[in-house]
Protein backbone atom coordinates (compact mmCIF):
# COMPACT_ATOMS: atom_id res chain seq x y z
CA UNK A 1 0.00 0.00 0.00
CA UNK A 2 1.57 3.27 -1.06
CA UNK A 3 3.02 5.50 1.64
CA UNK A 4 0.89 8.63 0.90
CA UNK A 5 -2.24 6.50 1.32
CA UNK A 6 -1.02 5.54 4.82
CA UNK A 7 -0.39 9.21 5.58
CA UNK A 8 -3.93 9.99 4.33
CA UNK A 9 -5.43 7.26 6.53
CA UNK A 10 -3.42 8.38 9.61
CA UNK A 11 -4.60 12.01 9.40
CA UNK A 12 -8.16 10.88 8.67
CA UNK A 13 -8.06 8.81 11.87
CA UNK A 14 -6.85 11.90 13.78
CA UNK A 15 -9.84 13.81 12.33
CA UNK A 16 -12.11 10.89 13.28
CA UNK A 17 -10.72 10.89 16.83
CA UNK A 18 -11.30 14.64 16.90
CA UNK A 19 -14.87 13.78 16.08
CA UNK A 20 -15.81 14.96 12.54
CA UNK A 21 -16.88 11.73 10.83
CA UNK A 22 -18.24 13.30 7.64
CA UNK A 23 -14.80 13.70 6.06
CA UNK A 24 -14.30 9.94 6.41
CA UNK A 25 -17.74 9.17 5.05
CA UNK A 26 -16.98 11.46 2.10
CA UNK A 27 -14.34 9.04 0.68
CA UNK A 28 -15.95 7.26 -2.27
CA UNK A 29 -13.43 4.41 -2.47
CA UNK A 30 -15.06 1.68 -0.38
CA UNK A 31 -11.87 -0.19 0.50
CA UNK A 32 -10.07 2.92 1.74
CA UNK A 33 -13.06 4.04 3.79
CA UNK A 34 -13.39 0.69 5.58
CA UNK A 35 -9.65 0.71 6.31
CA UNK A 36 -9.95 4.16 7.87
CA UNK A 37 -12.97 3.13 9.90
CA UNK A 38 -11.32 0.00 11.33
CA UNK A 39 -8.20 2.00 12.08
CA UNK A 40 -10.38 4.53 13.88
CA UNK A 41 -12.12 1.85 15.93
CA UNK A 42 -8.76 0.32 16.89
CA UNK A 43 -7.44 3.70 17.90
CA UNK A 44 -10.50 4.42 20.03
CA UNK A 45 -10.20 1.09 21.82
CA UNK A 46 -6.50 1.57 22.43
CA UNK A 47 -7.26 4.98 23.92
CA UNK A 48 -9.89 3.48 26.24
CA UNK A 49 -7.57 0.70 27.48
CA UNK A 50 -4.83 3.27 28.10
CA UNK A 51 -7.25 5.27 30.26
CA UNK A 52 -8.16 2.18 32.34
CA UNK A 53 -4.48 1.23 32.73
CA UNK A 54 -3.70 4.77 33.82
CA UNK A 55 -6.40 4.57 36.46
CA UNK A 56 -4.92 1.26 37.63
CA UNK A 57 -1.34 2.60 37.96
CA UNK A 58 -2.54 5.65 39.78
CA UNK A 59 -4.10 3.59 42.61
CA UNK A 60 -0.93 1.47 43.42
CA UNK A 61 1.29 4.53 44.04
CA UNK A 62 -1.03 5.90 46.68
CA UNK A 63 -1.51 2.36 48.19
CA UNK A 64 1.82 2.75 49.99
CA UNK A 65 1.98 2.40 53.80
CA UNK A 66 -0.97 4.72 54.53
CA UNK A 67 -3.78 3.47 52.25
CA UNK A 68 -6.78 5.69 51.73
CA UNK A 69 -9.56 3.31 50.49
CA UNK A 70 -12.21 4.73 48.24
CA UNK A 71 -15.82 4.23 49.36
CA UNK A 72 -16.29 1.10 47.23
CA UNK A 73 -17.23 -1.77 49.63
CA UNK A 74 -14.48 -4.01 48.25
CA UNK A 75 -11.82 -1.49 49.08
CA UNK A 76 -13.33 -0.33 52.39
CA UNK A 77 -13.63 -3.85 53.81
CA UNK A 78 -10.29 -4.94 52.40
CA UNK A 79 -8.78 -2.10 54.34
CA UNK A 80 -10.58 -3.23 57.50
CA UNK A 81 -9.43 -6.82 56.94
CA UNK A 82 -5.86 -5.61 56.46
CA UNK A 83 -6.11 -3.73 59.74
CA UNK A 84 -7.55 -6.68 61.72
CA UNK A 85 -5.49 -9.45 60.10
CA UNK A 86 -2.16 -7.95 59.06
CA UNK A 87 -0.46 -9.51 56.05
CA UNK A 88 -3.56 -11.45 54.94
CA UNK A 89 -4.23 -9.52 51.74
CA UNK A 90 -2.47 -10.96 48.72
CA UNK A 91 -3.11 -8.14 46.32
CA UNK A 92 -3.52 -4.40 46.18
CA UNK A 93 -6.83 -2.76 46.91
CA UNK A 94 -9.06 -2.55 43.88
CA UNK A 95 -12.73 -2.16 43.17
CA UNK A 96 -13.48 -5.58 41.81
CA UNK A 97 -12.43 -7.94 44.59
CA UNK A 98 -10.41 -8.62 47.73
CA UNK A 99 -7.54 -11.02 47.19
CA UNK A 100 -6.75 -13.04 50.34
CA UNK A 101 -4.13 -15.61 51.24
CA UNK A 102 -5.71 -18.95 52.14
CA UNK A 103 -4.11 -19.52 55.54
CA UNK A 104 -6.14 -17.05 57.71
CA UNK A 105 -9.31 -17.42 55.70
CA UNK A 106 -11.38 -19.22 58.38
CA UNK A 107 -10.75 -16.52 61.01
CA UNK A 108 -11.43 -13.75 58.50
CA UNK A 109 -14.66 -15.45 57.42
CA UNK A 110 -15.99 -15.94 60.93
CA UNK A 111 -15.01 -12.36 61.75
CA UNK A 112 -16.81 -11.10 58.63
CA UNK A 113 -19.95 -12.86 59.76
CA UNK A 114 -19.85 -12.07 63.45
CA UNK A 115 -18.69 -8.44 63.25
CA UNK A 116 -21.90 -6.40 63.82
CA UNK A 117 -20.94 -3.55 61.52
CA UNK A 118 -20.14 -5.98 58.66
CA UNK A 119 -22.55 -8.89 59.40
CA UNK A 120 -22.08 -10.77 56.12
CA UNK A 121 -24.71 -13.40 56.84
CA UNK A 122 -25.32 -14.69 53.32
CA UNK A 123 -22.82 -16.43 51.10
CA UNK A 124 -24.42 -15.61 47.76
CA UNK A 125 -22.18 -17.51 45.38
CA UNK A 126 -19.02 -19.58 45.41
CA UNK A 127 -17.17 -19.97 42.10
CA UNK A 128 -14.12 -22.00 41.25
CA UNK A 129 -11.98 -20.80 38.33
CA UNK A 130 -8.96 -22.26 36.57
CA UNK A 131 -6.68 -19.23 36.02
CA UNK A 132 -4.27 -21.15 33.79
CA UNK A 133 -0.46 -21.36 34.54
CA UNK A 134 -1.10 -23.93 37.26
CA UNK A 135 -3.30 -21.58 39.43
CA UNK A 136 -6.81 -22.32 40.71
CA UNK A 137 -8.99 -19.74 42.42
CA UNK A 138 -12.06 -19.84 44.65
CA UNK A 139 -14.23 -16.72 44.60
CA UNK A 140 -16.77 -15.96 47.32
CA UNK A 141 -19.55 -13.39 46.83
CA UNK A 142 -20.72 -12.34 50.28
CA UNK A 143 -23.71 -10.20 51.01
CA UNK A 144 -25.23 -8.71 54.16
CA UNK A 145 -28.99 -8.84 54.41
CA UNK A 146 -29.03 -6.20 57.13
CA UNK A 147 -26.65 -3.57 55.72
CA UNK A 148 -27.27 -4.59 52.11
CA UNK A 149 -23.64 -4.36 50.98
CA UNK A 150 -21.73 -7.06 49.14
CA UNK A 151 -18.09 -7.95 48.54
CA UNK A 152 -16.17 -10.51 46.48
CA UNK A 153 -13.30 -12.40 48.07
CA UNK A 154 -10.83 -14.36 45.95
CA UNK A 155 -8.34 -16.95 47.15
CA UNK A 156 -5.79 -18.20 44.63
CA UNK A 157 -3.98 -21.47 45.23
CA UNK A 158 -1.54 -23.38 43.08
CA UNK A 159 -2.71 -26.66 41.58
CA UNK A 160 -0.27 -28.98 43.35
CA UNK A 161 -1.34 -27.98 46.89
CA UNK A 162 -4.88 -26.69 46.40
CA UNK A 163 -5.96 -26.42 50.02
CA UNK A 164 -8.37 -23.82 51.35
CA UNK A 165 -9.85 -23.87 54.87
CA UNK A 166 -13.53 -24.77 54.63
CA UNK A 167 -16.16 -22.28 55.79
CA UNK A 168 -19.09 -24.67 55.85
CA UNK A 169 -19.56 -24.26 59.57
CA UNK A 170 -20.02 -20.49 59.12
CA UNK A 171 -22.33 -20.42 56.12
CA UNK A 172 -24.12 -23.77 55.88
CA UNK A 173 -24.61 -23.47 52.11
CA UNK A 174 -20.82 -23.49 51.86
CA UNK A 175 -21.10 -27.24 52.48
CA UNK A 176 -22.63 -27.97 49.05
CA UNK A 177 -20.89 -25.10 47.24
CA UNK A 178 -17.47 -26.32 48.35
CA UNK A 179 -18.29 -29.90 47.51
CA UNK A 180 -19.21 -28.82 43.99
CA UNK A 181 -16.03 -26.76 43.57
CA UNK A 182 -13.97 -29.71 44.80
CA UNK A 183 -15.86 -31.94 42.36
CA UNK A 184 -15.21 -29.64 39.41
CA UNK A 185 -11.76 -28.19 40.17
CA UNK A 186 -10.07 -30.42 42.72
CA UNK A 187 -9.60 -27.74 45.38
CA UNK A 188 -9.51 -29.49 48.75
CA UNK A 189 -11.38 -27.75 51.56
CA UNK A 190 -9.76 -28.66 54.86
CA UNK A 191 -12.13 -29.20 57.76
CA UNK A 192 -15.11 -29.98 55.51
CA UNK A 193 -17.19 -32.59 57.34
CA UNK A 194 -18.60 -34.34 54.27
CA UNK A 195 -15.87 -33.90 51.65
CA UNK A 196 -17.32 -35.88 48.73
CA UNK A 197 -18.00 -35.15 45.09
CA UNK A 198 -21.25 -33.29 44.60
CA UNK A 199 -22.51 -33.94 41.08
CA UNK A 200 -20.27 -36.64 39.60
CA UNK A 201 -20.14 -40.24 40.85
CA UNK A 202 -17.64 -40.90 43.64
CA UNK A 203 -15.14 -42.81 41.53
CA UNK A 204 -14.92 -40.39 38.58
CA UNK A 205 -11.33 -39.56 37.71
CA UNK A 206 -10.22 -36.04 36.93
CA UNK A 207 -11.76 -32.64 37.60
CA UNK A 208 -13.94 -31.68 34.62
CA UNK A 209 -13.87 -27.88 34.70
CA UNK A 210 -10.12 -27.63 34.58
CA UNK A 211 -8.93 -26.25 31.25
CA UNK A 212 -6.67 -29.26 30.54
CA UNK A 213 -9.30 -31.91 31.42
CA UNK A 214 -9.36 -35.09 29.31
CA UNK A 215 -12.49 -37.28 29.55
CA UNK A 216 -11.63 -40.82 30.64
CA UNK A 217 -12.14 -43.50 28.01
CA UNK A 218 -14.53 -45.82 29.84
CA UNK A 219 -16.42 -45.58 33.10
CA UNK A 220 -17.21 -48.94 34.69
CA UNK A 221 -16.77 -50.53 31.28
CA UNK A 222 -19.17 -48.12 29.57
CA UNK A 223 -17.45 -46.48 26.62
CA UNK A 224 -17.89 -42.71 26.70
CA UNK A 225 -18.82 -41.79 23.11
CA UNK A 226 -16.76 -38.95 21.62
CA UNK A 227 -18.47 -38.53 18.25
CA UNK A 228 -21.86 -39.98 17.36
CA UNK A 229 -21.56 -42.87 14.95
CA UNK A 230 -23.23 -42.57 11.58
CA UNK A 231 -22.56 -38.85 11.60
CA UNK A 232 -19.13 -38.58 9.97
Amino acid at each position, binding site marked *: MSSEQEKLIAELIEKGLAGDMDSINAIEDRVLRSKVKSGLAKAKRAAKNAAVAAAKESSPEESSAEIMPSDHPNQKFAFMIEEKFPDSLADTLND*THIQIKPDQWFEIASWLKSEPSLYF*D*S*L*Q*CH*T*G*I*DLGENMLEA*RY*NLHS*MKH*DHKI*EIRIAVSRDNAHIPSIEQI*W*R*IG*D*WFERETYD*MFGIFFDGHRDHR*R*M*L*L*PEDWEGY*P*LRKDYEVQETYHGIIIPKVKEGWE
Partner: protein
Amino acid sequence: MGVVHGEEMVLNIGPQHPSTHGVLRLKVKTDGEIISEITPVIGYLHRCFEKHCENMTYDQVIPFTDRCDYLAAMANNFGYVVAVEELMELKVPEKVEYIRVIMAELQRIASHLLALGVYGLDIGAFTPFLFMLRDRERILDMFEMTCGARLLYNYMWVGGVSHDLPKGFVETAFQFLDYFEPQIEEYNKLLTYNKIFIERTADIGVLPQDVAISYGVSGPNLRASGVKWDLRRNDTYSIYEKFDFDVCIGDGGQGTLGDCWDRYYVRMLEVKESVKILRQALAQMPKDGDVHQALPKKIRPPKGSIYSRTETPRGDLGFYIESDGSPIPTRVKMRSPAFTALSVLGELAGGWMMSDVISILGSLDIVLGEIDR
Protein backbone atom coordinates in the same frame (compact mmCIF):
# COMPACT_ATOMS: atom_id res chain seq x y z
CA MET B 1 -23.74 -60.02 56.38
CA GLY B 2 -23.62 -56.53 57.96
CA VAL B 3 -25.05 -55.67 61.32
CA VAL B 4 -28.81 -55.71 61.07
CA HIS B 5 -30.41 -52.70 62.71
CA GLY B 6 -33.66 -53.68 64.32
CA GLU B 7 -35.78 -50.63 63.72
CA GLU B 8 -33.60 -48.53 61.41
CA MET B 9 -34.56 -48.95 57.71
CA VAL B 10 -32.76 -47.17 54.92
CA LEU B 11 -35.20 -46.34 52.17
CA ASN B 12 -34.42 -44.92 48.75
CA ILE B 13 -36.91 -42.33 47.58
CA GLY B 14 -35.16 -43.13 44.39
CA PRO B 15 -34.22 -41.22 41.25
CA GLN B 16 -37.43 -42.50 39.71
CA HIS B 17 -40.24 -41.46 42.06
CA PRO B 18 -43.53 -39.72 41.30
CA SER B 19 -42.96 -36.78 43.61
CA THR B 20 -39.28 -35.88 43.51
CA HIS B 21 -39.84 -33.26 40.79
CA GLY B 22 -37.09 -34.72 38.64
CA VAL B 23 -34.24 -37.18 39.05
CA LEU B 24 -33.41 -36.77 42.71
CA ARG B 25 -32.59 -39.57 45.08
CA LEU B 26 -33.22 -39.18 48.79
CA LYS B 27 -31.49 -41.68 51.06
CA VAL B 28 -33.88 -41.77 53.98
CA LYS B 29 -33.21 -43.43 57.33
CA THR B 30 -36.59 -44.23 58.78
CA ASP B 31 -37.72 -45.69 62.08
CA GLY B 32 -41.21 -46.95 61.23
CA GLU B 33 -42.90 -43.87 59.75
CA ILE B 34 -40.67 -41.28 61.40
CA ILE B 35 -37.72 -40.04 59.34
CA SER B 36 -34.48 -39.72 61.28
CA GLU B 37 -32.12 -38.55 58.56
CA ILE B 38 -32.20 -37.54 54.88
CA THR B 39 -29.28 -37.22 52.50
CA PRO B 40 -30.18 -35.99 49.01
CA VAL B 41 -28.08 -37.49 46.21
CA ILE B 42 -28.00 -35.37 43.05
CA GLY B 43 -26.12 -35.40 39.79
CA TYR B 44 -28.39 -37.66 37.75
CA LEU B 45 -29.25 -34.79 35.40
CA HIS B 46 -25.79 -33.22 35.21
CA ARG B 47 -25.26 -32.09 31.60
CA CYS B 48 -22.00 -30.13 32.03
CA PHE B 49 -23.70 -26.77 31.39
CA GLU B 50 -20.69 -24.82 32.63
CA LYS B 51 -18.21 -26.84 30.57
CA HIS B 52 -20.32 -26.29 27.44
CA CYS B 53 -20.39 -22.56 28.10
CA GLU B 54 -16.61 -22.48 27.88
CA ASN B 55 -16.57 -23.50 24.22
CA MET B 56 -19.54 -21.54 22.84
CA THR B 57 -20.06 -17.87 22.03
CA TYR B 58 -22.25 -15.74 24.31
CA ASP B 59 -25.40 -15.98 22.19
CA GLN B 60 -25.08 -19.75 21.74
CA VAL B 61 -25.23 -20.19 25.54
CA ILE B 62 -28.81 -18.83 25.68
CA PRO B 63 -30.55 -22.05 24.50
CA PHE B 64 -28.57 -23.85 27.21
CA THR B 65 -29.77 -21.50 29.95
CA ASP B 66 -33.35 -22.38 28.90
CA ARG B 67 -32.68 -25.95 29.72
CA CYS B 68 -31.37 -25.34 33.23
CA ASP B 69 -34.64 -24.37 34.88
CA TYR B 70 -36.94 -25.74 32.19
CA LEU B 71 -40.07 -24.58 34.03
CA ALA B 72 -39.02 -20.92 34.03
CA ALA B 73 -36.92 -20.66 30.86
CA MET B 74 -37.72 -16.99 30.30
CA ALA B 75 -36.42 -16.14 33.77
CA ASN B 76 -33.15 -17.95 33.04
CA ASN B 77 -32.73 -16.15 29.73
CA PHE B 78 -33.46 -12.88 31.50
CA GLY B 79 -30.86 -13.57 34.22
CA TYR B 80 -28.12 -14.53 31.77
CA VAL B 81 -28.84 -11.69 29.37
CA VAL B 82 -28.88 -9.06 32.15
CA ALA B 83 -25.51 -10.39 33.36
CA VAL B 84 -23.87 -10.20 29.91
CA GLU B 85 -25.30 -6.75 29.21
CA GLU B 86 -24.04 -5.52 32.59
CA LEU B 87 -20.61 -6.91 31.66
CA MET B 88 -20.69 -5.11 28.31
CA GLU B 89 -22.35 -1.92 29.70
CA LEU B 90 -24.90 -2.30 26.90
CA LYS B 91 -28.05 -0.11 27.10
CA VAL B 92 -31.22 -1.79 25.81
CA PRO B 93 -34.12 0.20 24.29
CA GLU B 94 -37.18 0.95 26.45
CA LYS B 95 -39.56 -1.33 24.55
CA VAL B 96 -37.27 -4.35 24.98
CA GLU B 97 -37.12 -3.76 28.73
CA TYR B 98 -40.92 -3.74 28.88
CA ILE B 99 -41.21 -6.88 26.73
CA ARG B 100 -38.71 -8.64 28.97
CA VAL B 101 -40.55 -7.70 32.16
CA ILE B 102 -43.86 -8.83 30.64
CA MET B 103 -42.38 -12.15 29.58
CA ALA B 104 -40.64 -12.66 32.93
CA GLU B 105 -43.84 -12.00 34.88
CA LEU B 106 -45.92 -14.25 32.62
CA GLN B 107 -43.31 -16.94 33.13
CA ARG B 108 -43.48 -16.37 36.90
CA ILE B 109 -47.23 -16.97 36.85
CA ALA B 110 -46.84 -20.07 34.68
CA SER B 111 -44.06 -21.48 36.86
CA HIS B 112 -45.92 -20.78 40.11
CA LEU B 113 -49.09 -22.33 38.68
CA LEU B 114 -47.23 -25.52 37.95
CA ALA B 115 -45.47 -25.45 41.34
CA LEU B 116 -48.76 -24.98 43.23
CA GLY B 117 -50.56 -27.57 41.13
CA VAL B 118 -47.86 -30.19 41.60
CA TYR B 119 -47.77 -29.38 45.32
CA GLY B 120 -51.50 -30.13 45.49
CA LEU B 121 -50.75 -33.38 43.63
CA ASP B 122 -48.11 -34.35 46.20
CA ILE B 123 -50.70 -33.86 48.91
CA GLY B 124 -53.19 -35.93 46.93
CA ALA B 125 -55.57 -33.35 45.43
CA PHE B 126 -55.72 -34.19 41.72
CA THR B 127 -58.24 -31.67 40.40
CA PRO B 128 -56.52 -28.35 41.29
CA PHE B 129 -53.45 -29.60 39.42
CA LEU B 130 -55.48 -29.86 36.23
CA PHE B 131 -57.19 -26.52 36.71
CA MET B 132 -53.82 -24.81 37.16
CA LEU B 133 -52.31 -26.52 34.17
CA ARG B 134 -55.31 -25.50 32.08
CA ASP B 135 -54.59 -21.84 32.91
CA ARG B 136 -50.86 -22.33 32.37
CA GLU B 137 -51.62 -23.56 28.85
CA ARG B 138 -53.10 -20.15 28.00
CA ILE B 139 -49.83 -18.49 29.00
CA LEU B 140 -47.91 -20.99 26.88
CA ASP B 141 -50.16 -20.06 23.96
CA MET B 142 -49.09 -16.45 24.42
CA PHE B 143 -45.43 -17.46 24.45
CA GLU B 144 -46.02 -19.43 21.29
CA MET B 145 -47.57 -16.36 19.70
CA THR B 146 -44.42 -14.34 20.34
CA CYS B 147 -41.53 -16.69 19.83
CA GLY B 148 -42.97 -19.90 18.45
CA ALA B 149 -41.84 -22.10 21.33
CA ARG B 150 -43.94 -23.20 24.34
CA LEU B 151 -41.38 -24.28 26.95
CA LEU B 152 -37.80 -23.49 25.90
CA TYR B 153 -37.80 -20.16 24.09
CA ASN B 154 -34.30 -18.79 23.35
CA TYR B 155 -36.31 -15.57 23.18
CA MET B 156 -34.23 -13.00 25.08
CA TRP B 157 -30.96 -12.25 23.28
CA VAL B 158 -28.00 -10.20 24.46
CA GLY B 159 -29.07 -6.67 23.57
CA GLY B 160 -32.71 -7.30 22.67
CA VAL B 161 -35.30 -9.97 22.03
CA SER B 162 -35.56 -12.31 19.06
CA HIS B 163 -39.07 -11.33 17.91
CA ASP B 164 -41.23 -8.28 18.39
CA LEU B 165 -44.66 -8.85 19.95
CA PRO B 166 -47.21 -10.10 17.37
CA LYS B 167 -50.26 -7.98 16.52
CA GLY B 168 -52.87 -9.41 18.89
CA PHE B 169 -50.57 -9.87 21.91
CA VAL B 170 -51.59 -7.01 24.22
CA GLU B 171 -55.31 -7.72 23.79
CA THR B 172 -54.79 -11.46 24.38
CA ALA B 173 -52.75 -10.65 27.49
CA PHE B 174 -55.43 -8.38 28.94
CA GLN B 175 -58.05 -10.99 28.07
CA PHE B 176 -56.05 -13.61 29.91
CA LEU B 177 -55.56 -11.41 33.00
CA ASP B 178 -59.29 -10.66 33.25
CA TYR B 179 -60.07 -14.38 32.88
CA PHE B 180 -57.34 -15.42 35.32
CA GLU B 181 -58.04 -13.29 38.38
CA PRO B 182 -61.30 -15.01 39.46
CA GLN B 183 -59.57 -18.37 38.93
CA ILE B 184 -57.14 -17.57 41.77
CA GLU B 185 -60.14 -17.21 44.12
CA GLU B 186 -61.36 -20.61 42.97
CA TYR B 187 -57.97 -22.26 43.68
CA ASN B 188 -57.98 -20.71 47.14
CA LYS B 189 -61.46 -22.04 47.87
CA LEU B 190 -60.69 -25.47 46.44
CA LEU B 191 -57.22 -26.09 47.89
CA THR B 192 -55.64 -23.33 49.98
CA TYR B 193 -58.31 -23.23 52.69
CA ASN B 194 -59.23 -26.91 52.45
CA LYS B 195 -59.00 -28.30 55.96
CA ILE B 196 -57.20 -31.49 54.96
CA PHE B 197 -54.67 -29.43 52.97
CA ILE B 198 -54.11 -27.17 55.95
CA GLU B 199 -53.82 -30.19 58.20
CA ARG B 200 -51.17 -31.66 55.90
CA THR B 201 -49.11 -28.50 55.46
CA ALA B 202 -49.48 -26.16 58.44
CA ASP B 203 -46.73 -26.34 61.08
CA ILE B 204 -44.77 -28.80 58.94
CA GLY B 205 -41.17 -28.25 57.83
CA VAL B 206 -40.79 -24.94 59.62
CA LEU B 207 -37.78 -23.00 58.27
CA PRO B 208 -36.51 -20.37 60.77
CA GLN B 209 -35.07 -17.16 59.30
CA ASP B 210 -31.45 -17.52 60.33
CA VAL B 211 -31.26 -21.12 59.09
CA ALA B 212 -32.76 -19.99 55.79
CA ILE B 213 -30.23 -17.21 55.34
CA SER B 214 -27.33 -19.43 56.40
CA TYR B 215 -28.39 -22.01 53.82
CA GLY B 216 -28.66 -19.29 51.18
CA VAL B 217 -32.32 -20.08 50.57
CA SER B 218 -33.95 -17.39 48.45
CA GLY B 219 -37.16 -16.47 46.70
CA PRO B 220 -40.61 -17.58 47.92
CA ASN B 221 -39.03 -20.07 50.37
CA LEU B 222 -37.14 -17.24 52.11
CA ARG B 223 -40.03 -14.79 51.97
CA ALA B 224 -42.28 -17.43 53.54
CA SER B 225 -39.99 -17.35 56.57
CA GLY B 226 -40.66 -13.64 56.93
CA VAL B 227 -37.48 -12.18 55.39
CA LYS B 228 -38.46 -9.29 53.11
CA TRP B 229 -35.93 -10.06 50.34
CA ASP B 230 -36.91 -9.68 46.72
CA LEU B 231 -34.28 -8.87 44.12
CA ARG B 232 -36.80 -6.91 42.09
CA ARG B 233 -36.90 -4.51 45.03
CA ASN B 234 -33.60 -4.89 46.88
CA ASP B 235 -31.22 -5.11 43.93
CA THR B 236 -33.34 -3.57 41.18
CA TYR B 237 -32.41 -4.60 37.68
CA SER B 238 -34.13 -3.82 34.34
CA ILE B 239 -37.09 -1.43 34.88
CA TYR B 240 -38.72 -2.97 37.93
CA GLU B 241 -38.54 0.34 39.80
CA LYS B 242 -41.23 1.68 37.41
CA PHE B 243 -43.89 -0.68 38.72
CA ASP B 244 -45.44 -0.60 42.17
CA PHE B 245 -46.02 -4.03 43.64
CA ASP B 246 -45.45 -5.16 47.20
CA VAL B 247 -43.12 -7.97 48.27
CA CYS B 248 -45.43 -10.52 49.87
CA ILE B 249 -43.97 -12.35 52.87
CA GLY B 250 -45.37 -15.19 54.93
CA ASP B 251 -47.37 -14.25 58.02
CA GLY B 252 -47.95 -17.63 59.65
CA GLY B 253 -51.59 -17.56 58.52
CA GLN B 254 -52.38 -21.18 59.29
CA GLY B 255 -49.61 -22.17 61.67
CA THR B 256 -46.14 -21.07 62.59
CA LEU B 257 -44.26 -18.67 60.32
CA GLY B 258 -42.21 -20.40 57.63
CA ASP B 259 -44.09 -23.69 57.37
CA CYS B 260 -45.11 -25.50 54.18
CA TRP B 261 -48.44 -23.72 54.03
CA ASP B 262 -46.68 -20.31 54.09
CA ARG B 263 -44.38 -21.28 51.24
CA TYR B 264 -47.44 -22.36 49.27
CA TYR B 265 -49.41 -19.22 50.12
CA VAL B 266 -46.53 -16.81 49.35
CA ARG B 267 -46.44 -18.23 45.83
CA MET B 268 -50.18 -17.72 45.52
CA LEU B 269 -49.77 -14.08 46.64
CA GLU B 270 -46.89 -13.62 44.23
CA VAL B 271 -49.10 -14.72 41.35
CA LYS B 272 -51.48 -11.89 42.29
CA GLU B 273 -48.54 -9.44 42.40
CA SER B 274 -47.34 -10.57 39.01
CA VAL B 275 -50.81 -9.94 37.60
CA LYS B 276 -50.61 -6.41 39.03
CA ILE B 277 -47.18 -5.82 37.43
CA LEU B 278 -48.40 -7.19 34.11
CA ARG B 279 -51.34 -4.83 34.03
CA GLN B 280 -49.05 -1.83 34.57
CA ALA B 281 -46.38 -3.05 32.15
CA LEU B 282 -48.86 -3.80 29.37
CA ALA B 283 -50.42 -0.35 29.82
CA GLN B 284 -47.15 1.64 29.91
CA MET B 285 -45.38 -0.24 27.12
CA PRO B 286 -44.20 2.10 24.32
CA LYS B 287 -45.94 1.13 21.08
CA ASP B 288 -43.07 1.80 18.66
CA GLY B 289 -39.36 1.01 18.86
CA ASP B 290 -37.30 -1.63 17.10
CA VAL B 291 -36.37 -4.57 19.30
CA HIS B 292 -33.32 -5.42 17.19
CA GLN B 293 -31.81 -1.99 17.46
CA ALA B 294 -29.25 -2.72 20.17
CA LEU B 295 -28.30 -6.22 19.03
CA PRO B 296 -24.47 -6.11 18.84
CA LYS B 297 -22.92 -7.63 15.68
CA LYS B 298 -20.13 -9.34 17.62
CA ILE B 299 -20.64 -9.94 21.33
CA ARG B 300 -17.20 -9.34 22.78
CA PRO B 301 -17.40 -8.16 26.41
CA PRO B 302 -14.32 -6.37 27.86
CA LYS B 303 -11.93 -8.36 30.07
CA GLY B 304 -13.26 -8.79 33.63
CA SER B 305 -15.87 -10.60 35.67
CA ILE B 306 -19.40 -9.86 36.86
CA TYR B 307 -21.82 -11.44 39.36
CA SER B 308 -25.38 -10.42 38.66
CA ARG B 309 -28.57 -11.71 40.29
CA THR B 310 -32.15 -11.75 39.10
CA GLU B 311 -35.41 -12.87 40.72
CA THR B 312 -36.68 -16.08 39.15
CA PRO B 313 -39.83 -17.89 40.38
CA ARG B 314 -37.56 -20.10 42.45
CA GLY B 315 -35.29 -17.43 43.95
CA ASP B 316 -32.05 -15.57 43.29
CA LEU B 317 -30.57 -16.84 40.06
CA GLY B 318 -26.95 -15.61 39.97
CA PHE B 319 -24.62 -15.64 36.95
CA TYR B 320 -20.88 -15.26 37.59
CA ILE B 321 -19.36 -14.59 34.17
CA GLU B 322 -15.62 -14.19 33.66
CA SER B 323 -14.56 -12.98 30.23
CA ASP B 324 -11.09 -12.41 28.76
CA GLY B 325 -12.27 -10.14 25.92
CA SER B 326 -12.80 -12.99 23.42
CA PRO B 327 -16.29 -13.88 22.14
CA ILE B 328 -16.15 -17.11 24.18
CA PRO B 329 -16.64 -16.80 27.97
CA THR B 330 -13.86 -18.31 30.08
CA ARG B 331 -16.16 -19.15 32.98
CA VAL B 332 -19.93 -19.07 33.46
CA LYS B 333 -21.07 -20.13 36.91
CA MET B 334 -24.79 -20.39 37.48
CA ARG B 335 -25.84 -20.05 41.12
CA SER B 336 -29.12 -21.94 41.15
CA PRO B 337 -31.81 -21.11 43.74
CA ALA B 338 -33.18 -24.67 43.77
CA PHE B 339 -29.67 -25.96 44.65
CA THR B 340 -29.73 -23.98 47.90
CA ALA B 341 -33.39 -24.85 48.57
CA LEU B 342 -32.59 -28.56 48.34
CA SER B 343 -29.59 -28.22 50.65
CA VAL B 344 -31.93 -27.10 53.45
CA LEU B 345 -34.07 -30.27 53.08
CA GLY B 346 -31.66 -32.33 55.17
CA GLU B 347 -32.01 -29.92 58.06
CA LEU B 348 -35.73 -29.39 57.59
CA ALA B 349 -37.14 -32.89 57.26
CA GLY B 350 -35.64 -34.56 60.30
CA GLY B 351 -38.26 -36.01 62.68
CA TRP B 352 -41.27 -35.78 60.36
CA MET B 353 -43.23 -38.63 58.86
CA MET B 354 -42.87 -40.12 55.42
CA SER B 355 -45.73 -38.25 53.80
CA ASP B 356 -44.45 -34.98 55.34
CA VAL B 357 -41.09 -35.40 53.61
CA ILE B 358 -42.93 -35.45 50.29
CA SER B 359 -44.94 -32.41 51.39
CA ILE B 360 -41.81 -30.48 52.46
CA LEU B 361 -40.00 -31.40 49.25
CA GLY B 362 -42.99 -30.22 47.22
CA SER B 363 -43.20 -26.94 49.11
CA LEU B 364 -39.55 -26.14 48.35
CA ASP B 365 -40.42 -26.28 44.63
CA ILE B 366 -37.11 -27.54 43.29
CA VAL B 367 -36.26 -28.31 39.67
CA LEU B 368 -33.51 -30.86 39.15
CA GLY B 369 -32.40 -29.45 35.79
CA GLU B 370 -31.26 -26.31 37.60
CA ILE B 371 -29.70 -28.16 40.53
CA ASP B 372 -27.55 -30.51 38.46
CA ARG B 373 -26.91 -28.03 35.60
